[in-house]
């Protein structure tokens, strides 16, 4: 294994780590969205306490759907961190 290949691999690994960190910025959106949804649900329960069950289950489904974009970000981060998708393009080319 020559030095150029090692350097290239180190660069790819560092870029993967940075990319994984950037991908997790996607967690901001669902955080805000879910907080807003839960706040609205609590407002509804405060106004009409008799529909607490329905409001809670609807809120959980809405939260789960809103969470999807954040989960996509998490998935990209997991793939970048532990599956090394770009490292195999390097082998033997440098």
């Amino acid at each position, binding site marked *: 294994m020559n030095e150029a290949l090692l350097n290239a691999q180190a660069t790819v690994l560092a870029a993967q780590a940075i990319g994984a960190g950037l991908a997790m910025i996607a967690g901001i959106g669902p955080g805000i969205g879910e907080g807003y949804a839960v706040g609205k649900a609590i407002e509804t329960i405060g106004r009409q306490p008799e529909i607490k069950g329905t409001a809670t*289950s609807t809120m*959980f*489904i809405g939260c*789960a*759907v809103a*969470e*999807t974009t954040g*989960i*996509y970000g*998490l*998935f990209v981060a*997991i793939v970048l961190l*532990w599956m090394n998708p770009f490292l195999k393009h390097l082998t033997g080319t440098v």
Partner: protein
Amino acid sequence: MNVEVQGPKRMISLLSEDGSVIFSISESVVTGWIVILIVLAVCLILTKDLKKIPETKRQCAAEFIVKTVNNMIETNMGKDLMGYAPYIAAVFSYIIIGTLISMIGFRSVTADISVTGGLALMTFTLITYTKIRYNGLGKYLLSFVNPLNIISEVATPVAMALRLFGNVCGGMIITMILYGALGSLSTIVYNGLLGLNSDVYYFNIFQIGIPAVLSIYFDLFSGAIQSYVFIMLTMAYIKMGKE
């Protein structure tokens, strides 16, 4: 301390003569068999010698479970889709036991994207079947005149699979990272107390009890909520497919 996050291991492998793997059965499938056996055992125990008027606590529990599921289907999907109740209950019990089995030391079945992908594919087939059955094949094909519908059709199972997988797997990774951090903390504290600077294995005292508190959220609560969300979305999509 290294934190190693690994996918499901190969449990049973069929090797060719030069040692390469032809066919292998992963850890998720083997744990899935255990989950199926648990569900089967619970079903057999609960439904043993049923009477018309319940006498035992077992029969009351079985009737309570069936009644709860039937009520949920009736309020969410309407009376004429009651035939889907066994499927929904089966998927729910498989997902919830498969997720909570991590509490007794197995790897969660749903922390494998192949398993959640398979479950989502089953639901997708059922949605498509319901659409064709209630609206006819022509109307189903006609909905693809707008090409955006193809994207939304494909996005449904992908989103369902990734949602379940991401939640369970994310919780697993966070728990593993916490275990590693607590192990390092124990080593640092031991070294500080004894005035040493070594990597000798000590008994990791901080790993007792503290992870259990987070496990209540990441394993118990998150697993239960996600399996509930999965079947609720299944019911919502099937009901939408009927209209």
